């Protein structure tokens, strides 16, 4: 396949940024999207230019490093995948593909397609845990958690922290990301002791990071690589409200 890529290039946080066109030749349908970019980058380096910078690591959809807007969609076409799991068989010969970084105030661009998602880190540090110290813990089976509850907690815990929910949301809201963690720990007996302080602190931090509000478009669920349900946003709202009284 032969493709034309319109790629966002930006030198650093302060640079204005611009789209640059690149031709991708000899693209095999079995290549992953990132492998296609690898090939483009080898050409760029050989020509003496700087390669397109993007975050990536495990390339199997679990580390959450990669993420770009591809033709206006977070992680590109297809459901339930991260960018690294997108394969070129999803495109046709001659296609023009627009590639942009996540766009959100809380995710400033560091370079090209790489953004700073440390706002997520600060939210997690504001109580996204149980205060269990190492050692002196009773046997795991002293806490019984029926399978449906464990399963639902798992569904929420599957979040990979990629930021697609924020990128897909017209308001750049992080409600699905925060909801997933709050919901996981609110469902489990282990999370009960700090249930109210957790949700209050995490929401406050989310606001401080300048993420937008949720207006129920459900774009986040549609683009989440792990298919995390918006019901966790509903639970987040419930937890937040009940924590205020």
């Amino acid at each position, binding site marked *: 396949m032969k493709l034309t890529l319109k790629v966002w290039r930006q030198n650093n946080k302060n640079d204005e940024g611009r789209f640059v066109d690149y031709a991708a030749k000899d693209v095999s349908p079995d290549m992953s999207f990132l492998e296609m970019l690898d090939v483009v980058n080898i050409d760029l*380096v050989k020509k003496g230019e700087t390669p397109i910078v993007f975050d990536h690591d495990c390339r199997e959809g679990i580390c959450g490093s990669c993420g770009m807007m591809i033709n206006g969609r977070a992680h590109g076409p297809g459901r339930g995948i991260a960018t690294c799991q997108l394969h070129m068989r999803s495109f046709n010969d001659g296609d023009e593909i627009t590639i942009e970084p996540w766009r959100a105030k809380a995710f400033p661009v560091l370079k090209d397609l790489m953004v700073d998602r440390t706002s997520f880190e600060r939210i997690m540090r504001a109580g996204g845990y149980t205060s269990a110290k190492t050692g002196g813990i009773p046997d795991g089976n002293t806490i019984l958690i029926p399978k449906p509850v464990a399963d639902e907690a798992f569904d929420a815990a599957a979040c990979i922290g990629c930021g697609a929910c924020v990128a897909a949301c017209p308001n750049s809201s992080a409600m699905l990301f925060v909801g997933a963690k709050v919901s996981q720990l609110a469902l489990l007996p282990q999370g009960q002791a700090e249930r109210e302080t957790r949700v209050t602190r995490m929401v406050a931090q989310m606001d401080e990071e300048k993420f937008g509000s949720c207006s129920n478009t459900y774009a986040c669920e549609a683009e989440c690589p792990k298919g995390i349900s918006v019901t966790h946003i509903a639970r987040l709202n419930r937890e937040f409200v009940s924590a205020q009284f």
Partner: protein
Amino acid sequence: MTMNSNIPEGPIEKKWSNHKFNMKLVNPANRRKYKIIVVGTGLAGSSVAATLGELGYNVHAFCYHESPRRAHSIAAQGGINAPKNYSNDGDSVYRLFYDTIKGGDYRARESNVFRLAEVSGSIIDQCVAQGVPFARDYAGYLDNRSFGGAQVARTFYARGQTGQQLLLGAYAALNRQIDVGTVKFYDRREMLDVVIIDGKARGIVARNLISGKIESYAADAVVLATGGYGNVFFLSTNAKASNATAVWRAHKKGALFGNPCFTQIHPTCIPVSGEHQSKLTLMSESLRNDGRVWVPKKKGDTRSAKDIPENERDYYLERLYPSFGNLVPRDVASRRAKEMCDNGYGVGASKMAVYLDFADAIKRLGSDEVFQKYGNLLDMYKQITGEDPYKVPMRIYPAVHYTMGGLWVDYNLMSTIPGLFVLGEANFSDHGANRLGASALMQGLADGYFIAPYTISNYLASNKFAAVKEDNKEFTEAENGVTATINKLLSIDGTKTVDEFHREFGKAMWDYVGMARNKAGLQKALKILPEIREKFWKEVKITGNAHDINTELEKAQRVADFMELGELMAIDALHREESCGGHFREEYQTEEGEAKRNDKKFAYVAAWEYTGKPGKPKMNKEDLDFEEVHPSQRSYK
């Protein structure tokens, strides 16, 4: 070089508790005066940083990602072992210890392995308390499944994402300490040197990957938890950034490297699809619980799987190993798959694959239950290959997955550099010549939560520390060395990219130092590998500069180190004239084609010392004594 394994006296089941009692303690009020650097924040690094922070030490944690949650521990799928005996099938600490020693083909230290088995139960409890959503049954009890190399069901799991859930647990524990201020976290920093002052590890030099600035950090002890070196092969199941730079640079500063040739090839990976391939994807070994491995009985059979009738299929693992069947250890399963393909029974377009078939499991359990157990793995396969594993058998082939070798450590997990501790996959570890499934997560967390916090305290309490600052001359020298290497790399301005060199080097490693090795091949490798390295230093092309985000420069430094480490792996593989676990020398095999050890000559850890030039290492030996488990020919028949 003095190398003392410091194994405590006494019977094996008492060694750790005796040692814990004999170790010195640091008074809680004094702990904040000690500064500890932790490099790498995967399972082992996050757990040790969190635990040391809880104890009250002044912890500084570094990682090259933006977040600890990106570490490659996250990709571990299948599970974590613990001898809880919840399945009531006769499990015990001793049995896990026995299985691990045997699985490692009698090349691990008994005392360490026993301790690992001993503390592993507490890991499960710890993770449950953190809110890790392990699989449960309808009554609410923790569920177990079986894994390769064991005949009991002792593996705890969270769907096919156990590593993710355990890492997020450790990450949460670390976040809590960052929140309360006992741990200071440095993201996007890559360690490029260890600083040694008066014979002790007293700090690190790191590159800020955003600004390019070279930064120094002083401390009283340094912990490396930087993972394995499988990416030396270019194609492996490791994440793209996983690298050996931290351990290799520590090696060059005096830390011995143990058993570098012990690499694990994982039997169930998705086969290579073309030249562009950037990494390989693993399918959890847990699939072998219900999936059946087979090839056509006829050589060069071109029919599709559904057209091959049952009686023309060879379920070769079940045929060769009736008692373990599809659940033989990884090294055995990998070698047999290679043998089948080498002999012309391979399937798929490349003929370099065997089938892993879920048809019987779907018939027996129904697709719903198969989805419950393996859903995400089967989806992943479909995503990559475009084939539906619920309808056609998956094609699998072995790939480099884990490295049992690593920096040599004593019983306290301390390297030959005093004050430099090495945890998780980065150390030469408890897995001998082969790691059993679901043991990597166990080891990383055992080291981080339950072992190193004690032994590091003992080290701090037993030593005196002169005041050290970042402007000491040792730091300046290390910074200058790091900067010189970077400038040298950028100045070459050759014609080939880092990836092209890495691919070429990795291919030579796979061909001659891969799944099966022989003398002639290894000698050839020792000729080719230094040539590629030499060419790299003359012809590599890196664009951009050192004062900016420069991903090519990051890769170049890692690849430069792989090119030295790869040669050491070949030297080690050539010297070890026996087959054991993941190290298979074709000259040394039994009549049935199994690995043939030579316990008289090679029952030791080869700990290599850097002598100032790559390719000229000096070997030190740690003899292995087997007092509990008598080495025998491994049999899984």
